[in-house]
């Protein structure tokens, strides 16, 4: 199966191409050089390196975040439009799961982190079962301290924010906290490889309805929700 993997949810944007379990090409660029400007140019570059055209693909995999809200919209919109136009199956994969996948031989509970700005992180806990990380519990958005409060057993923290905040995490948890390498960011090919079992199981996403995993509402949305809840609270229950 030939799959193109796209991820523009983090600061490093990547495009990868796989043929069965072989990585044909993997290309990364800095998102500050513009996700939108570079994405099609680099998809074309990766396909040419692999000697393939879009029509040769059997499917597309795309990172759906959490991460940069603006960045992830570029990759998701491009992937869903390509999948619709070409009639190829599409598989959306979360950034956190992709990080967990990088350490799927570990026996500890995995906790991948993605930077959420303003000293907060996106996170989730994963346990590896039959070679695949399975998420346990809800996604988390908040401070590092709030996250470490939830830890009850040895955890392997993954991702750049884990490395940056390792002192805070270690002082809260002590030796049960371990850390992955600082450079374990998954490339586009990793996203494509992760999609293989899903395509095999028919677990594809509808390209028309696929949207990013934001794990957070905009400030305006939060304000509105509070205002509307207050307005509802003022009325008789059930009205």
């Amino acid at each position: 199966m030939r799959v193109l993997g796209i991820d523009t949810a983090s600061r490093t944007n990547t495009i990868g191409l796989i043929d069965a379990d072989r990585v044909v090409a993997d290309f990364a660029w800095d998102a500050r050089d513009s996700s939108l400007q570079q994405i099609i140019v680099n998809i074309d570059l990766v396909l040419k390196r692999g000697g393939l055209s879009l029509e040769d693909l059997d499917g597309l995999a795309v990172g759906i975040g959490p991460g940069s809200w603006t960045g992830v919209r570029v990759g998701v919109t491009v992937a869903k439009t390509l999948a619709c136009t070409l009639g190829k199956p599409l598989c959306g994969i979360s950034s956190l799961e992709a990080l967990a996948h990088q350490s799927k031989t570990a026996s500890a509970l995995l906790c991948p982190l993605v930077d959420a700005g303003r000293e907060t992180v996106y996170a989730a806990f994963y346990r590896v079962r039959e070679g695949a990380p399975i998420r346990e519990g809800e996604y988390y958005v908040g401070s590092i301290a709030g996250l470490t409060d939830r830890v009850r057993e040895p955890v392997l923290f993954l991702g750049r924010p884990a490395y940056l905040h390792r002192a805070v995490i270690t002082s809260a948890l002590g030796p049960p906290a371990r850390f992955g390498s600082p450079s374990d960011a998954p490339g586009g090919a990793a996203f494509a490889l992760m999609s293989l079992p899903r395509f095999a199981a028919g677990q594809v996403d509808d390209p028309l309805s696929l949207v990013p995993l934001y794990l957070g509402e905009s400030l305006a949305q939060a304000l509105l929700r509070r205002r509307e809840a207050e307005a509802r609270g003022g009325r008789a229950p059930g009205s």
Partner: protein
Amino acid sequence: MLILGIETSCDETAAALVDDGNVLSNVIASQIDLHARFGGIVPEVASRKHVEAIGYVIRETFDSAGERPAAVDAVAVTCRYGLIGSLIVGVSAAKAMAYALKVPLIGIHHIEGHIFANILSHPGLPLPHVCLTVSGGHTMLIHVEEPGRYQVLGGTLDDAAGEAFDKIAKFLGLSFPGGPAIERLALAGDGAAISLPRPLGRSRTADFSFSGLKTAVVNMCQGRDRGSLPLADIAAGFQEAVVDVLVSKTLQAARRLGVTAVSVTGGVSINARLREVFSEACPRHGLQVFFPRPDLCTDNAAMVAAAGAVRLRQGEESGLDLNAVPNAPLESIKCPAKRC
């Protein structure tokens, strides 16, 4: 030539198919009800909604035209002027579409799109002419020498006219968007009952200013009980002042340039009082006046496809590295083939 147009510069997710000046389909998914809950357009909310809607809107565009993507000859997309987060979604989809179909991609300035709303609606629209494009996001006077050749004569120095309507509506406790709300209330009022200033009305420039008008309304109401305010007269007086400035500035520019026609476009060009005053005043000055067909007044993708067709014919094409630029100036086609 069949052109797919895509437009997501603000709060409408739009796609259209235009074939040699014939609009085959013109699909617009409006977010207005969503933003009305916030009392204005929220950029992050708009961007999210665009991603949700874009696939469905493009599919509906093909279905309702009875066309297939493989039949498309080029993809035109609004890539300049608008909310950056919104523009990005349309440009992402358009780039993917053009790349997958192996057809040319043409990036269009949003204002050029509005100019084409009238050219598309009226094939006999004289050239050159003066175009007033006026909405919640912009207010601009443009000398349209020919399709692809423009001279911006002036624009607003502060608020767009539609934005002034929104702000006054909010101040008077009316709903969002403010244009239709003020227009409705004004029907019951006397536009001459209250005297409001005509900012820059006497100046010879083609620039507009609406924030002073807003301040005048606010000052007039200051310290008075809302129940005692003649709301309908205020709405009518305000609308009259905006319309007066828009019409007089447009006529002034048309006379100065010696054109025989003016075109009015953008969301505010739906306003019935604006149309009425233009339609009365233009013949008196020997001018023809044109308004777009109703579905091409507000943001839409048919106008973008029409602009794209002309640019493509003039030999313009964008690269796959096309980017979105929120506040780019309106530019003419640099080197129209026939002039080289």
